[in-house]
């Protein structure tokens, strides 16, 4: 810290713009800059992460509301919350929502709110497939993919730019900036490496929770066999690597490591019962 200050003061002194400032001002300026440098290395706090996620989730719900099917909502929350207990952030306020949309898609928001569309849910066949999709989304939360992407998109450093003030959703221009960048990120998608990481780790998290490791690959096979021109897949295909490329990656890493696992049949009966209620 002291080193930063001395270096920054020295740097400030060498700038022509410093003419006319007294030593006190220079020290103060150097100190403020140093605080920012230190803050830049500080991660966004969990509370900030959750608050940004809240704003993003409310925006997504503006595009598609929740399904009114309470049984499906509860079922997805049970599966998701169970899977979340097998991550390294089991105490996040994980919550799940089924979106009233015929599109096939799923979304993660920072802090642990995860959505799956009704259209995708209706195209799944087992609880293991659902667990695989939710685990994939959880990795985006765990690895803070969206948080990093929106800070990059807005050239924003939430932790340092905030400098200790509360990130109030109503009045903080920084929050507005973050959420605007968030909209762009969700419309454009994450880097493909983030998606591959979510697949690679997602299968392990679902397996840890006792599910069939091949649930997520089966969903990718379903997407691979679906018509790529179908409008209900447009955003999913725009924002993700091709299903065949994702399968090839899983093909490489799964090899024979996942042969000994299968999901209990009890999960199939309740999956079918819960999904059958979706209209």
């Amino acid at each position, binding site marked *: 810290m002291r080193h930063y200050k001395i270096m920054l003061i020295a740097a400030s002194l060498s700038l022509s713009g410093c003419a006319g400032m007294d030593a006190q001002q220079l020290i103060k300026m150097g100190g403020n800059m140093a605080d920012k440098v230190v803050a830049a290395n500080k991660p966004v706090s969990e509370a900030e992460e959750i608050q940004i996620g809240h704003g993003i989730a*409310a925006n997504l719900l503006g595009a598609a509301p929740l399904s009114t099917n309470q049984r499906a909502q509860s079922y997805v929350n049970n599966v998701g919350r169970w899977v979340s207990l097998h991550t390294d952030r089991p105490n996040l306020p994980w919550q799940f929502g089924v979106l009233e949309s015929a599109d096939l898609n799923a979304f993660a928001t920072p802090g642990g709110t995860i959505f799956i569309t009704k259209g995708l849910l209706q195209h799944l066949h087992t609880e293991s497939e659902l667990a695989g999709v939710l685990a994939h989304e959880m990795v985006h939360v765990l690895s803070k993919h969206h948080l990093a992407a929106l800070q990059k998109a807005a050239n924003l450093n939430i932790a340092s730019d905030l400098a200790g003030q509360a990130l109030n959703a109503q009045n903080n221009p920084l929050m507005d900036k973050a959420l605007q960048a968030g909209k762009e990120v969700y419309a454009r998608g994450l880097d493909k490496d983030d998606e591959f990481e979510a697949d690679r780790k997602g299968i392990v998290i679902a397996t840890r929770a006792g599910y069939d490791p091949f649930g997520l690959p089966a969903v990718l096979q379903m997407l691979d066999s679906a018509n790529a021109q179908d409008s209900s897949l447009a955003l999913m295909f725009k924002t993700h690597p091709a299903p065949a490329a994702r399968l090839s990656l899983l093909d490489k890493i799964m090899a024979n490591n996942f042969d000994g696992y299968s999901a209990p049949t009890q999960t199939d009966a309740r999956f079918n019962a819960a999904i059958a209620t979706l209209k």
Partner: protein
Amino acid sequence: MKKVMVLLLLSCITLPAWADSIGYTVRATDIKQKPFSDASTLATLPEKSSVTIVQRMGGWVRISSGKGNGWVKMLNLRSSSTRKGDSGLQSLFNVGRSGSSGITVATGVRGLSSEDLQNAPANPAEYAKLAQFAVKANQAQQFAKKGKLQSQTLDFIPAQ
């Protein structure tokens, strides 16, 4: 073992995943009599063979092909479609969309296109509803117990 087999066979019946879709092999692939690596091999499909997928069970799919019927490893198959045009997946719930303009009328269900995501106003009231469906850790554990789910210990696999 016998019990496991029965369970597995039962689970076959309930898994009509992408049934009757067409796949092709991405490498030479053995057709197994049963969905196990050590089951007897009925035939070997060369790379780029076309197969009809009948059902999935774990990492295996049951197929029919010119070279015989049996089980192959799921990840030896791809099924990228060559069909064109809207296949009708998009059906009932886009009624709010007016005509071909893609404009969403205010009373209808909005869509999840890139434009929708960028333009939709926030819906904090809908967000508030999420909490009523959220499940506590102990409830989720009960749910898992009812489904006979058992936690496994497993490390992440490094990127290749």
